[in-house]
């Protein structure tokens, strides 16, 4: 499959290990990613608080860039970008008059969004386009004996109608479990997996954000998880980077490794610690590395 690719700003800055891990895994599983070099930030839900039409325009511009390259599917590795893009796309397709207005703004740059782009996230594409049985066949180092806690993040779960989950994709809230199982691991079930990581309020009410981090990671730990996996780099930022601080506030050690989804897939497909950037996390991933038996480089 060929995809227009939007990595999101965080995959190269806040969590710089994600971009190389995701692109290496994509190549291995036969996803051809054609990066939208001139795409802009999607607004991440924040910009929309200032001006919704601006967010709709910026995202329509990104979709138009994909159309211009003759690509009908826009793939991202960021749940938040996916959430914003899906909701804007949903709105623009429902309101042709509004899309026409947006296109007037884009015309100055010689762009037009025709409404043909489909938005997907790597997690969805792995299940829906690559297929779990194909993924299974590619596994060279199954995650045997590893208990993994799925952590979805909000924007890839809600609102369901925007994400196609009221129609043909009703089970998108179980894909992490499907993928963990296909790789030979054991998904654990816990309350926190469908909740908020707390990242959006870290600059506003850090105490609350930290409580969310410690609640979810400690719950996963109590359930026996060796690691937690997420398709959202912002969840990763909060659950990994702020985990030491959250542990301090909670008054107990946590030490829960937090993996990006491509890192977990890459581990089972034979990549090394170095390839997947697992040595670059704030919370040590050593327990996971050792149990998985992956090579250092």
């Amino acid at each position, binding site marked *: 499959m060929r995809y227009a690719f939007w990595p999101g*700003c*965080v995959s*190269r*800055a*806040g969590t*710089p*290990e994600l971009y190389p891990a995701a692109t290496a895994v994509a190549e291995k599983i036969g996803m051809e990613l054609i990066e939208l*070099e*001139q*795409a*802009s*930030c999607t*607004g*991440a*839900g*924040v*910009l*929309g*608080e*200032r*001006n919704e*039409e*601006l967010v709709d*325009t*910026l995202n329509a*511009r990104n979709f138009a860039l994909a159309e211009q390259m003759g690509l009908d599917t826009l793939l991202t590795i960021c749940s938040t970008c996916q959430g914003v893009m899906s909701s804007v796309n949903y709105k623009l397709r429902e309101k042709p008059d509004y899309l026409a207005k947006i296109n007037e*703004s884009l015309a*100055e*740059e010689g762009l037009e969004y025709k409404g043909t782009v489909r938005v997907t996230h790597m997690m969805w594409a792995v299940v829906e386009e690559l297929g779990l049985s194909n993924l299974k066949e590619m596994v060279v180092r199954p995650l045997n004996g590893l208990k993994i806690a799925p952590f979805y993040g*909000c*924007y890839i*779960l*809600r*609102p*369901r109608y925007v994400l196609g989950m009221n129609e043909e994709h*009703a089970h998108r809230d179980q894909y992490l479990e499907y993928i963990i199982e296909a790789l030979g691991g054991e998904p654990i079930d816990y309350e926190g997996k469908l*909740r*908020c990581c*707390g*990242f*959006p*309020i870290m*600059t*506003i*009410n850090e*105490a*609350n*954000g930290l*409580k*969310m981090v410690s*609640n979810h990671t400690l719950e996963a730990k109590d359930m026996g998880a060796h690691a937690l996996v997420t398709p959202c780099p912002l969840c990763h930022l909060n659950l990994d*980077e702020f985990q*030491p601080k959250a542990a301090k506030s909670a008054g107990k050690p946590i030490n829960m490794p937090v993996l990006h989804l491509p890192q977990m897939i890459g581990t089972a497909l034979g990549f090394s610690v170095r390839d997947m950037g697992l*040595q*670059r*996390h*704030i919370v040590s991933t050593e327990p996971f590395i050792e149990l998985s038996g992956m090579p250092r480089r």
Partner: protein
Amino acid sequence: MDVTLKVKRFDPETDEAAHFEEYQVDLPEYGAVLDGLLAIRDEQDGSLSMRCSCRSAICGSCAMKINGKSRLACKTMVSQLKELEGDVISVEPMGNQPVIKDLVVNMDMFWDKVNAVQPYLRPEGPVPEKEYLVSNESMMELAVAMNCIMCGACVSDCTVLEVDKSFLGPAALAKAFRFAGDPRDGHKEERLQLYTEPNGVWDCTRCFMCVSACPKDVAPMERIMDVRAMAMEAGLVNTRGARHVDAFASSVKHSGRLNELNLALKTFGFIRAGIDLAPMGIRRLFKRRLPPLMHKKIATAKNIARLFDKLGV
């Protein structure tokens, strides 16, 4: 249709902790969860406690957690649940509020928070001789929030209230929007000041839980975002939240992409950022994980800035 309901029971007079009990009931194809609960109460255990009244999704009495999600028991069809979520249906009291008995929770906190946003019109100036006239458009925007039936489903699923009971919460803040946006009210600025204080609109995590839970499509989170926008519009920009939005916008306007380092510095202010973020910077340095210090513009950044200008941002 045979239905298995797993109901969480708790009697404060005899139970130390809540426990699940399983019941089998026979319901017609169009039966709702509430019909199942009423059948249990009528035929198997008269002590099962719940709130319910209209059975038509209007009174807002029967919100409870069904298969872990807060919904109205009268509006939730059993056949649909069986098809999409499996044969056994679990029923629990709402979250974030203390349980009184079985499926009944104490909603005092809910009402206190709604009252705290002054949920009534406070017009200013002389009383007009006839009724106040408002345009249809201005009421259309508010109509969404007016659909609220005060059932509490949004509060039950709120992820912020789970960690902090002092947050005003989705129901009260959706109500806040309804009055701050009403053209007949004379205290918009005072209201916005109140709603942007700590525990107000800026404390929402934007997790969409309340949007999913609301049985009336009020989408409380969207209304909270509306109040944030109103507040910024009214010049209430000296909050962390507003500064964050501003810094975010200027970063994307300038380069087309988000400059995370700059965002943190501007949101926190340089001194606080220095103190707070330095330990993280050092940790990152050791992990070779510093974000690029020189933030690169995309080649077409000028086009992005023009779109910002065009919309006055």
